[in-house]
């Protein structure tokens, strides 16, 4: 292999890195700065609406791993009463098939993504833990009605260009420069 180009290739490459020296970094300082995630995010946990659930167990059947356990008994008015609704999120692979398959929209993926636990046992969620609450909100995955209410996702494609959003200019940089220490 001959060095026929007199190091011009090396010089060009070094110019490229030099140019990047003056571009703003794209790092997002995670715990302090958070970007808006997708409206359809298949977040960490499920949200279960007991009033909509009929106990048909379609979700349990559709789960590839059989993580959802449902025990019902027949109540009055010929409907099922759900005794036990337990999801082992420790074995869940967040494919979203259960949410897609639910005919009554009684199950939704969660929007949050910070649900680390110290023990595997803590990841098994029972009926009460799956209910809608402040920290457990549904995402728009397969739920178009929820989707429109959620904030729009931050996109890296717009990292160097302003984007009009709700009357004010938002871009990736301004988002990642908002440096609020602590949550």
């Amino acid at each position, binding site marked *: *292999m*001959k*060095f*026929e*180009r*007199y*190091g011009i290739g*090396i010089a060009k*490459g*070094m110019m*490229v*890195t*030099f140019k*990047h*020296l003056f*571009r*703003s*970094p*794209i*790092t997002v*300082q995670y715990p302090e700065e958070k970007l808006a995630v997708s409206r359809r995010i298949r977040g960490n946990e499920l949200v279960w609406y007991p009033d909509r659930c009929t106990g048909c167990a379609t979700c349990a059947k559709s789960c590839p791993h059989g993580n959802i356990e449902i025990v019902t008994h027949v109540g009055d008015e010929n409907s099922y009463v759900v005794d036990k609704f337990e999801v082992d999120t420790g074995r869940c692979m967040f494919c979203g098939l259960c949410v897609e398959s639910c005919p009554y929209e009684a199950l939704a993926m969660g929007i949050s993504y910070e649900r680390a636990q110290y023990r595997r046992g803590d990841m098994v969620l029972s009926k009460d833990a799956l209910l809608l609450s402040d920290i457990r909100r549904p995402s728009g995955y397969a739920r178009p009605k929820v989707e429109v209410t959620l904030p729009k996702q931050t996109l890296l494609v717009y990292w160097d260009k302003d984007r009009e959003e709700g009357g004010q200019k938002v871009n990736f940089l301004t988002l990642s420069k908002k440096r609020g220490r602590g949550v």
Partner: protein
Amino acid sequence: MTLLEQFQLWLGSIWPEWAAYITPAIIGVVVVLGFVLTTVIIFIYLERRLLGRFQIRTGPNRLGPEGIFQPIATALKVLLKEDIVPAKADKAVHWLAPVIVFAPILLIFAVVPFGKGAIFTDLNVGIVYVVAISSLSAVGIYMAGWASSNKYALIAALRAVAQMVSYELPVILSILGVVLMVGSLSMNQIVESQSIPFILLQPLGFVIFFLGTVAEMNRCPFDLLEADSEIVAGYHTEYSGMKFALFYLGEYGHAVAYSAIIATLFLGGWQGPLLPPIIWFLIKIVAVFCFIVWMRATLPRLRVDQLMAFAWKCLLPLAVINLFIIAAEVLWLPESMPWIMVVLNFAFAGVLILLWSKLFTLGGGRVEV
């Protein structure tokens, strides 16, 4: 007469002779150690931040304002880690290796002039001493590679030996060009005679010396000794804790030392207008180091046979030719017109580099087995 020698003389007049010898030595060691440790910490911070910016990251910025305490935290973390010695290791050699890698760096600083007269000892063989001492750390590297009883480390040790031996020659030959012009081996005189920095007077010599030293301090693109994509971490694969910290220190210490030598030999050392000499010197060191970081952020690595071919087929002949050119110029050109020399040498450097780019081949690389 350096500052330290004056101090020693003064001390000799009031204290017994042996104390007058030992006290300045201890002071010198402490000062050098302090200087090396602080600059190493600054350099580590600088490199990480700069690399971050080159790679559109931010780099460490959590600890302290803009992360300036990060190197200290890193140092603490490394020091507090468990010290692991492989069961099959040659314990004594394994223990000794990091010390031998680190010690020569301190010795190098004995002859580096920080300012006018601010030199620990103005050896009249200064620059040869630097070369001799810096070759010592190769001993430490192959000790580490051998004693770890790890095959990656052994490969790194073999590479180290080949690399050090090959690159010493072009480095020495390019230094000789400087020495010819100065007419002395003393570092102080080398600096003082640079009314025009030697980078302008001997561009080719500078390029050769720079590449050679980058190879000797195992920096990109010659970082084969710790080529992480090939041989994991090279010679210090099996090191942890305090010993690893010494290697880490040694690596950056080498960077500091060689940056200082490059600044002294080719960039005019502490000379410069307006600012005090020590500041100029530090600015030059940091500039050289930043350039090295820039190279590290950009360039891939050469292969081991290409590295050797580069040393023997490219740098060595160029260094010899450079030496002859400088010798001829020193003999025949009038000393009063250095600018002619600048123009002439830049022309020579350009022609030679173009010529070698045409002629030079790195060889095929494949071996029939």
